[in-house]
């Protein structure tokens, strides 16, 4: 069976703590995720997501604190919301299915939400199959 590779950019203060909580609470979730800890979802440049897809990710999650007020840095999550709202249109034009990219808000106590998001994402992307760019392959 195809096992998707999912890259997660998780904010240090909320989502990463939720990932930790899922671990310490011994909740199991699909092992398809590669979690990259960043200080804030507002730190995640759309270039990172493009690089992840370029380097073989089948799906990408950017996750941070709940808007409007949970952000450790006041409004980093709002900046992420603005960026990835526009960025989604770029992904759509490039023919990347919307299930391959998610922007999620997961607080430090929401280990269950983390597990739900990851499980859904893995199943959605598994149905889509591997992300294989058409371009960049050898010409006829």
């Amino acid at each position: 069976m195809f096992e998707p590779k999912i890259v997660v950019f998780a904010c240090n203060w909320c989502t990463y703590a939720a990932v930790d909580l899922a671990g310490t609470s011994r909740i199991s979730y699909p092992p398809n995720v590669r979690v990259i800890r960043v200080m804030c979802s507002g730190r995640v440049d759309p270039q990172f997501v493009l690089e992840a897809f370029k380097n073989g990710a089948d799906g990408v999650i950017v996750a941070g604190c709940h808007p409007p007020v949970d952000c450790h840095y006041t409004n980093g999550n709002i900046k992420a919301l603005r960026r990835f709202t526009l960025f989604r249109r770029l992904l759509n034009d490039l023919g990347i299915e919307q299930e391959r990219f998610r922007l999620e808000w997961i607080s430090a106590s929401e280990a269950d939400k983390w597990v739900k998001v990851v499980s859904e994402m893995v199943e959605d992307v598994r149905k889509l199959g591997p992300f294989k760019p058409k371009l960049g392959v050898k010409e006829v």
Partner: protein
Amino acid sequence: MSERVKVAFYWCASCGGCEEAVVDLAEKILDVINLVDIVFWPVAMDFKLEDVERMPDNSITVSFINGGIRLSEHEKVVKLLRQKSKLVVAFGACSSWGGIPGLANLYTREEILERAYLTTPTTHNPDKIIPGSKTEVEIDNTKIEVPVFLASLKPLDEVIDVDYYIPGCPPTPNVTWKALETLLSGNLPSKGSVLGASDRSLCDECPLNKTKPENVLIKEFKRIVNFNPEPNKCLLVQGLPCLGPVTRGGCGALCVNANMPCTGCFGPLSDVRDYGGKAISYLASILDLDNEEDIKRELSKIIDATGLVYKYYLPKSALKGKVGGSKS
């Protein structure tokens, strides 16, 4: 007696504007001709490809190549020029990153051919003739092979090794002249350098920069087609998506001086990996709205976000073009 500098110019998938830009040097072109021998320039002088084939390897001092690589013929000629040249310079946006013809990477080869040969309103093609992967034509007992239209457009450095880049759509005379001076000085910068342009963003040299606050924050996006910006005031502050902050300077802010926002033809600064990703990041972050619905509404006013941020850069971007899905 030292040997004279030999220069070649060639065009691939381009509009011809880069060739115009060389002529735009105006009377300075006479200085250029005094300094160099032009050994190959199909657009302006009568040379045949066989003339280049007969030249010894590395005998051309520098080849300036503009346009992206779209046809098998382009591949063939640039590989030949690489073999015959000491230095190869990607001249202009198309050659450096794909340029406007590179936007065709949002469509497959089949979609492009169908549009161009069958469905445009002005096309009359009752026999539905479309170029095949190999097309041979016989004229007066001579077989001619039509070049193959490749699956996608590639920047020059994905086909051959490139020494330097001159940005712009087209490179301005000033930038072209500065780049020529650098190349002729013999004091060559490190390989891969961008010649003739600035190492700072366009805002740094923009005459409107003094009216740009430390933190640009706007409440709405406007379009230049239905908005007449105030002169002498930063276009970004007025709500126009100007790409100056993420674009390399060196053009002298020509567009902004004509009250038009920068569209990014000088490409990314050296620390940027993907121009489009950076531009999206910048444009979205100056929007000073917190509510999801407001954000969606204002961002929807940016028509064709992909065309805006990848106008000159799509084939060089991380994903190089449309990577999946069907027709859009």
